[in-house]
């Protein structure tokens, strides 16, 4: 597969509605963080709902929401791990080992890194640009613009010019 076979929509070809929806996929994460901070699974559920609502509308929005959803999975698991550990400590012997604090700092650093990536993606999505996070961007791209996606996402109806043109 060569890069010629994949035709990407350019920023001026993407409607502002799509740009806003794609930005919303990343914005959703910040909103649900505020609401569901102690239960980190909530933002994952919100991202899933957002993805399943928007994936039919536009490939550009589907790409960005899937990237947001996929990249939230590991971060959420790490945050959930800290919550489970904290509750376990509170329910048992109240002993906070130093490995707990290492995990805490680790979690904070990962979340900061993730927020930086998310804001970068958010700004670009608003401008109608593609942004690829390492690994997640690649997976999401191949799902919606990869060689298989061309046949899978072929529209049932399409406009063609009259014969001779």
């Amino acid at each position, binding site marked *: 597969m060569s890069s010629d076979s994949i035709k990407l929509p350019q920023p001026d070809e993407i409607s502002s509605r799509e740009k806003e929806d794609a930005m919303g996929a990343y914005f959703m994460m910040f909103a649900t963080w505020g609401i569901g*901070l102690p239960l980190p699974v909530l933002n994952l559920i919100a991202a899933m709902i957002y993805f399943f609502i928007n994936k039919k509308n536009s490939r550009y929005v589907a790409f960005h929401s899937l990237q947001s959803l996929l990249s939230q999975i590991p971060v959420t698991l790490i945050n959930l791990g800290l919550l489970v550990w904290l*509750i376990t400590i*509170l329910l048992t*012997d109240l*002993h906070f080992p*130093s490995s707990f604090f290492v995990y805490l*700092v*680790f979690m904070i650093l990962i979340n900061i890194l993730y927020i930086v990536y998310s804001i970068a993606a958010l700004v670009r999505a608003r401008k109608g640009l593609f942004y690829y996070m390492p*690994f997640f961007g690649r997976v999401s791209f*191949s799902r919606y613009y990869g060689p298989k996606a061309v046949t899978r996402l072929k529209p049932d109806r399409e406009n063609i010019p009259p014969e001779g043109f």
Partner: protein
Amino acid sequence: MRQGLYIIRDIAILIAALLVLFLLSVGVVRLLGTKEQEKPGSVPAVALSLELTLKSLIRESIKNEQRIAEAPLVNQSIAAISKRLLGAGDPLPYDLEILVLDSPVVNALAFPGGLIVVYSGLIERLESPEEMAAVLAHELGHVVHRDAMKNLIRQIGLSTLLSLL
């Protein structure tokens, strides 16, 4: 085929980033000097002064709301029993204080900071000094294990987590 190589490269980048963050967090915790607590199950050292403050607050509120028994004989015999009990076990983290309350309730309680409250109803029910010793030994166990403070930390921690939900 080349896609596979790029995905492996991306995963390697992610793993390297996680490793760097992990080492960074280990370094931060080392620098801040969070020392491992000596004994599993012990309450953090900062809690000790807090416990003593709580103790004086609780003592004040008990003295305001309940009647303290004014029987020197009872207090002397309880002091004698607790002195013998204290000699048998580990040293306490703070001084023991026993209050006898004038009330028909049959109960004895251990509060933070080594404050033990015995109701006179219980003393009337007892038939021998050994029974009193058994009750006091039980409450002393709570004091040695600092159960009151641990339960307090546990309750505050869990209810804070729950209230955020």
